[in-house]
């Protein structure tokens, strides 16, 4: 069974997924961060593929992406770094990034490398759903990768049903109409949206992402979905405190609720 499916089968709620940009803060910090996150109790990790023009990202992830590129990160280096990751890490791992670097690497080549590395799913925010269905589905299937799709507060019900049918493992539920970043709390409109989607009885589990930054926002998100994803807040922490074991552990402990 795909490790993402296994996780959702085994853990009923409070699933904590972390996003960081590969190659940030240092070119070689990637595997260390993943291993430490796994040891510290993260349930899942999304490995960000840096891109020069991350149009859906706020300043924190933009800067981490710039830094990673300056450090020399590329997809071929990333796959080399991850070669032995499955010797130590058993939690689900996903790759997340924009389409262009993946296209230049070659879709088949990318997916094959993902499978050989032990990657369980792929999130490509600028890959349109209909193009995925027409041109990408077979390749991702062949290499047993879950394609994770996003939904936003503006997504209409018909399209949510389609995403529910298509998204593999889970649906990435964007918490508000915004680029990535951190927030202190959720607005009544956001809560209304969470409740509305909860009422749709979707078959695919959801994780809430964008704007989750603290135990408070995390536990609130966990009331309305199986868990949540933290990106910008984690990267900010890496910038201010570093990527050593103690900093990462205390960050995870400050968020986790079981």
């Amino acid at each position, binding site marked *: 069974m795909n490790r993402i499916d296994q996780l959702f089968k085994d853990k009923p709620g409070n699933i904590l997924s972390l996003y960081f940009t590969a190659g940030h803060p240092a070119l070689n910090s990637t595997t260390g961060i993943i291993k430490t996150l796994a040891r510290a109790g993260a349930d899942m990790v999304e490995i960000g593929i840096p*891109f*020069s*023009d*991350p*149009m*859906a*990202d*706020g300043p924190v992830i*933009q800067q981490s992406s*710039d830094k990673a*590129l300056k450090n020399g990160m*590329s*997809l*071929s280096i990333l796959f080399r770094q991850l070669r032995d990751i499955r010797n130590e890490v058993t939690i689900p791992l996903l790759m997340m990034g*924009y*389409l*262009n*670097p*993946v*296209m*230049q*690497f070659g879709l088949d080549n990318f997916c094959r490398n993902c499978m050989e590395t032990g990657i369980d799913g792929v999130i490509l*925010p*600028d*890959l*349109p*759903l*209909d*193009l995925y269905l027409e041109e990408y589905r077979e390749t991702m299937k062949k290499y047993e990768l879950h394609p994770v*799709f*996003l*939904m*936003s507060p*503006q*997504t*209409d019900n018909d*399209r949510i049903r389609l995403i529910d049918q298509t998204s593999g493992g889970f649906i990435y539920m*964007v918490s508000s*109409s*915004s*680029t990535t970043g951190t927030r202190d709390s959720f607005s009544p409109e956001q809560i209304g949206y969470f409740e509305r989607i909860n009422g749709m009885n979707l078959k695919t589990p959801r994780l809430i992402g964008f704007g989750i930054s603290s135990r408070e926002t995390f536990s609130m998100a966990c009331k309305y979905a199986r868990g949540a994803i933290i990106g910008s807040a984690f990267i900010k922490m890496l910038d201010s405190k570093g990527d050593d074991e103690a900093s990462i552990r205390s960050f995870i402990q400050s968020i986790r609720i079981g």
Partner: protein
Amino acid sequence: MDFEVNPKGFYGEFGGAFIPEMLYPNVMELQRNYLNILHDAYFQQEYRKLLKDYVGRPSPLYFAPRLSGFYQTRIFLKREDLNHTGAHKINNTIGQILVAKRLGKTRIIAETGAGQHGVATATVCALMGLKCIVYMGKIDAERQAPNVLRMKMLGAEVVPVYSGNMTLKDATNEAIRDWINHPADTHYIIGSVVGPHPYPDLVTRLQAIISEEMKRQLREQTGNENPGFIIACVGGGSNAAGAFYHYLDNPEVRLIAVEAAGKGIDSGESAATMALGHPGILHGSRTMLMQTEDGQITEPYSLSAGLDYPGIGPIHSHLFKTGRAVYENATDEESLEAAFRLTRLEGIIPALESAHALAFLDKGRFKPDDVVVIILSGRGDKDMDTYIRYMEKHDM
């Protein structure tokens, strides 16, 4: 050959709408409505009336006698520089502001490079009483300072962009991010034939007024609506797309687009996308892009802010691939020289962007009775600092 966009937004293999889900409703709303709006009789009436009474169209097609004498051929200038606000950009913003109003939008955003599109957007927002926010790379805001002041006087908020190279690509990223953050009330007026479907087609159709008028004007002035050559500069490619549009199915008209070679194609400081690029995905469409082997977009360079862009509209990638149009380039130096030649021979100071089209006159082979139309996409007021520096350097 079919040069129209297909229902999914593709020109051959180029185009499409590669957008994050957060933009899907906005882009779909436009996709579903733009053709109905453009074809609506009342829209057309309003658009045409504003182009005539407010913009000052039709823009003249001027036979340039001394320039023609110099190059030993018959050169006509399509005078987009005489439009209100000084460039072709307003053809698009007039149309898009009317689209935005029909969609009930109250807040307008735009990106700008040279500032011409920013000024044209700020202008139509003042005209319609709508809030206007313009994203502009910090480098561009410095080198096109007069246009920043014009936008401010027009009541727009100009937001300097500090990411990347601080030029047009980065301003476009920031405008897209703004749109993601304001999905309900905001219309994004893209300034060229770039972006996700339907923008390339929407902007092409709004700029197509250029070739529509040319046909009539050439018939009146030469007896033949078809010129031998149409030459236009390309940044994203909107003035070129508009100038080519009504001639696409007419292969005897040779279409020539001129990109910015910056300091030279091989100098590493260039913005000549067709010469240096490969297919890729940026700003919502699949098109030719300057990029590394790893798919990172490379920073372009041109002295001309309006051409300093690493991509090109997908319609151009298709015209390039099919060979329907030819993509040439001109360096900073060649373009500056061409700008002074036009100025001294005809008394017209062109925008530095448009000067790239003029520079092709030195490279092309034209017969004495060829009719050559050059799109003079804009005027040179915004480039006076650059021109003055050139005069000082060359003791003029």
